């Protein structure tokens, strides 16, 4: 059965399988209206529409309906009976296109030198031709927030869509937020104690935080000036934080660090998003009260301490959900670039350990869009939003069943092929495997 599905998939896309990775190309703009019928539509906001109809037109969602819709004329019709229809998945805090091989320096463009780099922009290094991208989108991830990592202020991230000729085309929300790496506020374990290290790392961390405060105070003063005798690019780059147009993404893990971040954001009236936020489950109520949203790290990770529940990282999202905290998840560092194709399965684990499947889906669709400031355009299957949609044979959150048959970005049908399926074909041929 399964094999058949796979086979059908390739057959359905046979016009595309002729492409090798190097000849695959982004799809042209949507020309025809697309009508998807019969599928179970998961809106992304918790609602499910059984046997729904979805009409995509000129790159937008024109209609979502529980009842049949008549579309006349030259439309492409997709029978999604027995299939699941979802909003395109969104990967926040991503290294996609900045890191190709994490072990090989020349393929890494993610950490710039220096400490205060709000002027650094990830978008200009985003490589649309990374071989990883196609393997990620063929699992349903259609948008990613490309995020720099070096220094205390690594720079600005941008949201990209994963079907583009170059980064200008890819940009979906340019420079959508400034990132800040909170100095660590915890003592060193014995194994990390070394000569020359600060005797009191917490005090040292607070001192660093003070430097950041000064930086933003000066930036604020600078931005209040009407004209400048000398231009400061770093200060200029922070404007969006002060005018509220860009969130302040603070990368941190521990309670004290998160509390410090909340105070910091309050002082400057920044819109705060915590990234990583390992111990956010301990202060979920405080986060809720302060309207702080969270981009968790990988759900599939080991507990922070030996004594934590063995499944604490699996349970954390459920605890945030229960407390009413707006959250999503992302992959930071390590092998985050290629692992992002597992995004839906991390959400599956969220569901297994404490929330409904629709809530888990929201975490990587609508809620991610809200956190990244793009919910007006995407994140759910709602009229007027971009036609960012995926169709799967089964539950997208479960690897048992999450096989994509279609994906659309702004109404453009994606070629779901990738380097892996191509090598698969090549060796199926060699071994005569059907």
């Amino acid at each position, binding site marked *: 059965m399964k094999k058949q599905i796979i086979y059908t998939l390739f057959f359905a896309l046979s016009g595309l399988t002729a492409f090798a990775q190097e000849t695959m190309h982004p799809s042209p703009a949507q020309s025809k209206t697309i009508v998807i019928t019969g599928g179970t539509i998961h809106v992304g906001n918790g609602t499910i529409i059984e046997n729904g109809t979805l009409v995509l037109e000129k790159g937008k969602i024109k209609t979502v309906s529980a009842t049949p819709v008549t579309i006349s004329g030259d439309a492409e019709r997709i029978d999604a009976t027995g299939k699941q229809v979802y909003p395109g998945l969104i990967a926040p805090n991503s290294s996609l296109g900045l890191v190709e091989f994490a072990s090989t320096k020349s393929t890494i463009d993610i950490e710039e030198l220096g400490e205060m780099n709000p002027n650094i922009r990830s978008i200009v290094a985003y490589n649309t031709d990374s071989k990883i991208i196609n393997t990620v989108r063929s699992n349903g991830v259609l948008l990613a927030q490309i995020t720099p990592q070096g220094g205390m202020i690594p720079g600005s991230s941008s949201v990209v869509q994963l079907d583009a000729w170059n980064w200008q085309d890819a940009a979906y929300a340019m420079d959508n937020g400034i990132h800040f790496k909170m100095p660590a506020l915890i003592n060193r374990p014995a194994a*990390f104690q070394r000569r020359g290290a600060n005797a009191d790392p917490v005090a040292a*961390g607070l001192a660093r935080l003070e430097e950041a405060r000064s930086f933003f105070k000066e930036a604020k003063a600078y931005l209040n000036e009407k004209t400048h005798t000398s231009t400061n690019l770093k200060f200029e780059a922070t404007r969006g934080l002060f005018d509220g147009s860009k969130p302040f993404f603070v990368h*941190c893990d521990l309670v004290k660090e998160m509390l410090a971040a909340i105070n910091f954001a309050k002082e400057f009236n920044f819109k705060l998003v915590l990234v990583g936020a390992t111990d956010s489950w301990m202060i979920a109520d405080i986060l809720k009260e302060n309207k702080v949203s969270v981009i968790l790290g990988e759900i599939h990770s080991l507990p922070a301490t*030996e*004594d934590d529940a063995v499944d604490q990282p699996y349970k954390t999202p459920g605890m945030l959900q229960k407390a009413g905290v707006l959250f999503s998840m992302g992959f930071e*560092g390590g*092998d985050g670039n290629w692992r992002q194709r597992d995004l839906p399965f991390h959400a599956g684990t969220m569901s*297994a350990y404490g929330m409904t499947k629709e809530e888990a889906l929201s975490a990587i669709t609508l809620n991610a869009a809200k956190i990244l400031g793009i919910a007006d355009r995407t994140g759910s299957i709602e009229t007027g939003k971009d036609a960012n949609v995926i169709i799967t044979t089964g539950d997208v959150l479960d690897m048992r069943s999450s096989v994509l048959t279609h994906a659309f970005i702004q109404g453009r049908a994606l070629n779901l092929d990738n380097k892996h399926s191509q090598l698969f074909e090549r*060796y199926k041929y060699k071994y005569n495997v059907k």
Partner: protein
Amino acid sequence: MKKFQPFWLGALFLLVSTSLFSQVTFPINDVASPSNGYYAFTNATIVKDAKTTLSKATLVIKNGKIESVGAVAVPKDAVVIDCGGKYIYPSFIDIYSDYGMSAVSPGGGNFRSPSQMISNTKGPYSWNQAIKSEVSHAKLFEVNESKAKELRKLGFGTVLTHQMDGISRGTGVFVSLAKQRENLVVLKEKASAHYSFNKGSSTQDYPGSLMGSIALLRQNFLDAAWYKSKPAKEGTNLSLASFNEIQSLPQIFEVSDKWSALRADKIGDEFGVQYIIKASGNEYQRIDEMKATNAKFILPLDFPQAMDLEDPTDARFVNVADMKHWELAPTNPATFEKAGLSFAITANGLKDVSSFMPNLRKAIQYGLSEQKALEALTSTPATILGVSDMVGSLDAGKLANFVITNGPVFADKTVLIENWVQGEAYPIAKEQWNSLAGKYDLTLGANKATLSISGEPGGYKVQILAKDTTSVDFSQKESLINLSFSSKADKGKRTRLTGTFADASFTGTGQLANGDWISWKATASAAADTVAKKAGKKEDKLELGSVIYPFAGYGTPKPAAAETILIKNATVWTNEKAGILKGSDVLVKNGKIAAIGKGLKDPSARVIDGTGKHVTAGIIDEHSHIAGTGGINECSQSVTAEVRIQDVIDPDDIDIYRQLSGGVTSSHILHGSCNTIGGQTQLLKLRWGANAEGMKFANWDPFIKFALGENVKRSWNTSNPRFPDTRMGVEQVLMDAFTRARDYEKQGPGKRIDLELETLVEILNHKRFITCHSYVQSEINAMMKVADHFGFTVNTFTHILEGYKVADIMAKHGANASTFSDWWSYKIEVTDAIPQNAYLMQKTGVNVAINSDDAEMARRLNQEAAKSVKYAGMSEEEALKMVTLNPAKMLHVADRVGSIKEGKDADIVVWSDNPLSIYAKSEQTIVDGAVVFDRAADLVRQAELKAEKQRLVQKMIGAKKGGASTRPATPSYKAENECEDDHHHGNSIWDRISNRWANTEN
């Protein structure tokens, strides 16, 4: 003068001491003044040894030795010292000291620094810088009076000392703590031989891991035995010669952990040596195992300092195991006593040696008997070291090493007054000889009053009693005293007096508040008022947590035992011909699967309702690095077949429990991949709570880890100094190793037994099997060609991400494949890795497993297997086999595990859902019929852990409030072992935090 006033003894000895100790070969720059140091200590309570106490007894010493002890006549020509009210004990012996040795700086070097392949030590010595058997520490010894004084103050008279550096360290020297020339202080030049697992100051790469240290020591035993045959090829090797010579001495092995105590003992068992173990302090956590060693122990008293846990978020990062150790460490000596083990006590390891007696008292408070404590400081160390003829008790003929105290030596308020070493007195608290307490008639010029002194020496309460009571500041330096006070009339100005004390009276002079000089005296008139002793704060009853197995957060006082279990009405994935059985029962009995089928009954069984549940064989992880300690990579050489993971299993690793929570019942623990021929592997059954031996999978075919490609050619290093640097060189490393092994095997009797080559010969003879880390097709092919050439099969290619490209050749060769489900693009050599790899290899006839190489992912191997369903359309049944039956086959244990079949080991998982689903959780994980993980019981354990941790936090805060010194809360941390030292796959919280610390330190 009838007898000496003890006050003046010190001064006297400065004069006579040179003559008592004059050394005949040394010239005298004076007039000779010979003395035989003849003394009689009378009226003392003499504790001859821990079992014999004599009251009103006399100790006579002469020429630095004890002449007689007991109810003996006082020789006329002896100096008599009245010890009425005093106690005399043998001076203590510390047989684990570095007294008189210069400090050693730790060696540098990790595998990233330039290679140093052989020793830097010049001369005809060992190839390895950490083997220093030839070092006679007597030659390094220098008297160090300031250190000696510190130790004498604690009551020590002799120590066994050596420079604590290296793996085979050479011979220790037994010395006294007298302030004399080295010639006279050295009592036994070669008293012991010393060992450890720590290479210390060695700058050589090898060994770079604990398992390397063990291998080095084992090889050294073999080399030394072989050296006895005077092999011409070896020439002269003084390290080996000395190693042989010093075997007859007491062999002392220092370890840093309870498990290492067992490791040392195991080496001793292999080579017929019973080591004396210098313990680490946590041995109480495994006292049965300690007892089984039959070793004698040297126990430290460096109990952990309390932490400041007032900040709850800091306390959260201190593991309950660390807190429990803080609480229970003082029970270590008592636990040894209860178990009937022989042990000495050492001051070694104390950051501040003055904490020795308080810590010893604490150990006594925690159950150590005073008698045993005294034995552990006197007769036991003397016996262990074989120096009972010299020290250890107060018997005629032994050294005049003894301490004089004002009470029972371990009692709270007892003070050591003098420590005599080799017949010479070293004052410690001389004012304690006589109490000044009493009432005195005070004459101060024309005024008369009563001077009242009460309390204990060092803490007197002094008052002048006249119309008013005036409190007096009092200070004393031996017989010199000072008084200072201010009477009402003085209006705050003070009268200051100086004087001496002798024969129960004071005489002196002073200045009144107005500046006039005045003489004064005070003569004894009456006994002191007895100070009503405050009802001593009642010692809190000791409330201690229990020792748990393993000693980690989710350990329990009693590890799970095998049960009779009946799982009813479940979906059973048999992995056998029967396939997936719906509504089936599984009966577990005596650790085995007893029956499978519908309607099974066993009244004695614990019933698990399997309705809606799935039952599978336990997951077997072919490639894991959990539960290893001291490094799982021996990177220093390209061939390290002699190192063994079995030597470094850490049963306390929380990852064992975490794996169980994901249904893993067996993990194959591999050496890392930083060299071509790595170390021997160990298959474990995850029997949480067992010791290392208890976790080993019984009767399995031994395996070894090989590796190819980027890691072994060290691609991250721009100037790799270690051969090989290319895949061409890797192949030659293999060819060379097996060629040497084949030649070695042909050598006749009398050859040097080489642990590395012995291991390779096992491979050639199909007695040991390879699991080979590999990625790209060229190297996979090359490895198989090498194996073909030497007539063996590569049992398993592990990782094998390009296996799909050569699957037909692998199938023909007979290799198994253990791969990642979908890892790729983390380095150049995995650029062609695809998630359909497992499927393609399987379709081509290769037995395929999915492995983790990652403590986190291992908990989801069932779901990793499911990715082959998603990416390649593999059947679910075949997918599950990739993490159960298939790895069992490739590890040669499919006769016992890997499927649900009658008679097989009851290694079983009960899942909440289809085991391939992302929603599936292990509800019970059963190993050999014991429920080692139970999701419901886990909630109870979490609650218990929380309560225990809270109790300990409160106790530590109480200790802080009670005045205990504390250190900042130090987060507990254990590194996750990584296969590849150059590249971290994980992104743990500590990876991120340390990145943000670096941020702080720029």
